[in-house]
Structure formats: structure tokens, C-alpha cells
């Protein structure tokens, strides 16, 4: 490999993973608290820095300085490993998400794989190990229950998650996320096929399965990231804090960050698959396939991507403070009985549309 590739990749990793995602994690924690406060007619953290923006920093410092307490009864190796196992895969998945167009001949994606979604699912599934390990290694009943719940929940919803994007892949005929975005930029976003080919009968008809897919995908994403209304693994009314009950300090912070990172990546994927990634609507400022764009346009594209992601994160937060938590049996029923069936039917529906409507 040449030095250029290495340099470019490193810069992209640093730029994207460490300068965008991680701050975004911190900021989304802040946003979560501020938004929840606003929804509940409160103020929220507003003391540290302007609008409390430095609250995230303060939290970080606090996590770092707190006593890192390891209970005596835990399996220490696994116990220590678990937080890393949740944090790392979440961050890893960002490698294949295109966060911008082809700026100055450099694709704004860390690794331009042709199996993007598969890679994401494969890696993201690993986070469940972290949670299961945390639950089991804690050697304590609530974390254990949390871990068990987490496992079955993740496995259940991973199926729906996978099935829900099959129609998209069928439509796009593509697994490269960069090209999927490019396609949407030209022919209308998956759920907003309002320009290009999207405006054809086929495109509009396809919007129906895509919309169903979108709902299943989003919902499953909530379940996958253990967000409310599906946060049963850490459901505090029943399990104190679920799998991370026994964790404190930075180890707890890693779970915490992992959750938010997963949420961001999930949002990124959703944006990429359904909302046209970095593209602007109606084909504005859309480069041709492989066309280099200038720095200015490139920055706009990056900005658009993050704006969409942030919007999606806000939606996550909004949902969290609007809906009550599911009961565990409801959760399982929803996953296996409804979403699984609907997703399967959706695939068939898409196939039918693709086959019948030319």
C-alpha cells in the first residue's frame, strides 16, 4: 500500500471517527439531556459553558476521575473486556459509511467496501458480546438478566433489520454504500423518490415497500441500540441498571459511549440507506458518478450528511421521551410475529413490483 492511501485513510479516520463521531457522541449526550429537559418543560444542564455545552467535557472528566471500582465477585478479565467489546465495534462500523462525496478525488469514506451493509451488520452484531459478557462477568443477578435479555433482543431484531434492507438492496442492486448514495442523489432518496427515476411509476410504487422497510429498520435500530422504548436490558425499574449495574467510572462510560456511538452509526446507516446520505434533495449540487467536487461543495455534502444524522439522533431522543417502555413479551412478539413477517412480505412485495412494473 502506498503512503498516500495510508495517509488519506488515517486522516479520514481521525477526521471522521475521532473528530466527528466521538464529539458527536458527547454532544448527543448533552442534546439528550437538553432535549429531554425541553420536552419536560425543564432547563437541563446549562451551567458548564455556554448553554451547558461543556457539560459533555465535564462528564468525561468526571468519568475519568471517578474511582474505577471493580467488585470482588466479578470475572475480572471478561469484566474488563466487556466495555471495550461494546465500544469498539460501534466505532468500527463507521468505516464503511460515506460521509461525503468525492472531494478532490478522495471518496469521503474510510473503507469503500462493496459489502457495506453486510459489514455493518456483521460488526455491529459483535456488540452483543460485550453486553452478554458484561452481564455474565458481573456475577450478579440483575446484570445477568440484562445480558440475557440483550442477547435475545439483539438476535431477534437483527433478523428484522437484515430483512428490512433486502428490498432496498433489491432496488439499488448494489451493496456499495457510496454508490447507493450516488444512486439516491440522482434518482431520489429511497423514501422520497421525487426526482430522477424516482418519479416514474415504478419508483413511486417502490416507495411503499421502502417506507415499510424504513419503519422496520428504524424500529429495529432502536432495539439494536437498546434505546427506549426497547431498553429492556438496562431497564432500571426492573433491573436496576441491567448489564452495567456493576460498572462504574470509565468502564461505565464506555458502555455509555458505545450506546451513543451505536446510535450515531445507526443513524448514519439509516441516512445513507433511506435519506440519501450526503446528497441534497432534487439533485442539487449532485456530482456525476466518480466526479470530483470542490472543497466547498464537498464540505456542503459532509455538512448535509451530518445534519441528517443529527436530525435522526434528535428523532431518537424525541422518541425516547415520548414512548413508554415495552414489556419484554410485547417486545418479542413485535419482533418475531409482526416485523419478521412484514419484512418477509415486504421483500416479496418489492420483488413483485420490480418484476411486474418495468
Amino acid at each position, binding site marked *: 500500500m502506498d503512503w498516500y492511501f495510508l495517509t488519506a485513510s488515517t486522516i479520514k479516520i481521525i477526521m471522521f471517527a475521532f473528530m466527528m463521531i466521538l464529539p458527536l457522541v458527547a454532544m448527543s449526550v448533552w442534546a439528550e439531556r437538553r432535549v429531554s429537559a*425541553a*420536552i419536560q*418543560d425543564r432547563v437541563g444542564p446549562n451551567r458548564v459553558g455556554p448553554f451547558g455545552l461543556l457539560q459533555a467535557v465535564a462528564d468525561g472528566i468526571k468519568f475519568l476521575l471517578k474511582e474505577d471500582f471493580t467488585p470482588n465477585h466479578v470475572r475480572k478479565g471478561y469484566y474488563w473486556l466487556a466495555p471495550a467489546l461494546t465500544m469498539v465495534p460501534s466505532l468500527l462500523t463507521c468505516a464503511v459509511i460515506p460521509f461525503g462525496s468525492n472531494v478532490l478525488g478522495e471518496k469521503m469514506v474510510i473503507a469503500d467496501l462493496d459489502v457495506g451493509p453486510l459489514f455493518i451488520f456483521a460488526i455491529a452484531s459483535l456488540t452483543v458480546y460485550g453486553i452478554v459478557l458484561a452481564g455474565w462477568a458481573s456475577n450478579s443477578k440483575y446484570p445477568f438478566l440484562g445480558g440475557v435479555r440483550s442477547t435475545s433482543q439483539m438476535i431477534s431484531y437483527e433478523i428484522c433489520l437484515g430483512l428490512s434492507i433486502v428490498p432496498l438492496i433489491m432496488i439499488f442492486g448494489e451493496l456499495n454504500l457510496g454508490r447507493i448514495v450516488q444512486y439516491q442523489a440522482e434518482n431520489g432518496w429511497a423514501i422520497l423518490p421525487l426526482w430522477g427515476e424516482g418519479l416514474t411509476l415504478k419508483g413511486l410504487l417502490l416507495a411503499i415497500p421502502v417506507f415499510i422497510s424504513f419503519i422496520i429498520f428504524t424500529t429495529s435500530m432502536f432495539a439494536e441500540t437498546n434505546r427506549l422504548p426497547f431498553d429492556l436490558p438496562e431497564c432500571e425499574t426492573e433491573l436496576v441498571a441491567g448489564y452495567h449495574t456493576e460498572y462504574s467510572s470509565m468502564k461505565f462510560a464506555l458502555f455509555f459511549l458505545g450506546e451513543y456511538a451505536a446510535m450515531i452509526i445507526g443513524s448514519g446507516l439509516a441516512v445513507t440507506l433511506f435519506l440519501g446520505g450526503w446528497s441534497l434533495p432534487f439533485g442539487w449540487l449532485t456530482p456525476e458518478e466518480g466526479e470530483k467536487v470542490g472543497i466547498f461543495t464537498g464540505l456542503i455534502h459532509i455538512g448535509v450528511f451530518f445534519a441528517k444524522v443529527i436530525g435522526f439522533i434528535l428523532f431518537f431522543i424525541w422518541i425516547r421521551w*415520548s*414512548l413508554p417502555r415495552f414489556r419484554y413479551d410485547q417486545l418479542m412478539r413485535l419482533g418475531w410475529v409482526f416485523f419478521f413477517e412484514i419484512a418477509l412480505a415486504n421483500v416479496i412485495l418489492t420483488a413483485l413490483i420490480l418484476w411486474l412494473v418495468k
Partner: protein
Amino acid sequence: MAIVVKRPKLRWWEQLYLPGIAKGLVVTGRHFINTLTGRKKVTMQYPEEKWDANLPEHYRGAPALVTDEQQRERCVACQLCEFICPPRAITIKPEEIPSDDKWAKVEKRPGSFDIDMIRCIYCGMCEEVCPEQAIFLRKDYAITGTSRDEMVHDKKKLYEIGGVREGLVNKWNDLK
């Protein structure tokens, strides 16, 4: 007797829950917007903003002992507050008022009167039970200290907080 609650029969679109969810989102969204635009303001910025001026008459802050117009201790150490206090925060040691004292007629006063403010739950039972109108929950709510000892209010401190209260019934006067 068991009460049977009839479940509402849901229409098919209601069974989807999506409209319900949307409705919920609208509600929370409205709150969000309202708060964000400052149309609605509930929370107060303590300590820059304080509600002291608007504290209700019956606000239950730190309990304190009061004296009357003539600097007389109203408390006669009957120990009813000690008895009623749910968290047992009050400890009183009564003593006899020496006969040469101006208020010797009352005979009894607290030798020591301690309220452990770490224990105090501001329930106001002491005020309610006091037959002498000697203990009141003041509007002080910022009770802080850097040690446990400091958080125990002794008699001196309690009178300091309480101050003088006028216009109360004088039970121990010359006529009675």
C-alpha cells in the same frame, strides 16, 4: 370485589399504534418547541433566581426556636417535639429555671435543644405539636455545613435562626 376494566376496542389503524405514536410525538414535540422558544417557563435558575419572595406562608424550611417580645424563651422543654419527630432528629435536655430568673414562674426550659438537620425531614410535626408556639419551620431552606457536627443545630443557633415572634398567645402571663 374485583373490578373489571373493559379494554377499549381498537380500530384497525389504532391497532397499528402508529397514529398513537405520532400523536404522542406531537405532544412532546409541542412541549419541546414551546420550551425552546421560551414561550413556556417553569424552572427557575437557582441560585441566581430565588423564589424567596413567593414562598408560601406555610413553607416548611428549617425548624427554629423563637422568643417572644421580651426575649423570653417560649420553649418550656415539654419534649413533645422530641416525641413526635419521625426521624428522631430532636434531642432535648430540660432544666429548671433558677428561682431568681425573671421567668422563674415558667419553671422549666430547655437546657440543651439539638436538632440534627441531617436527620430532619422538614415534616413540620414539631411545629404542629408544640403547645407553646415555640418552634416554627422557618423559610430557610439552604441548610449546609461541612461536617456532621455543624449540621446539628444547638439551642443558640436555633434561637439565632428563629428570632423574635410577636403576637402569639402568651400563656405564661401574670393572669393565668
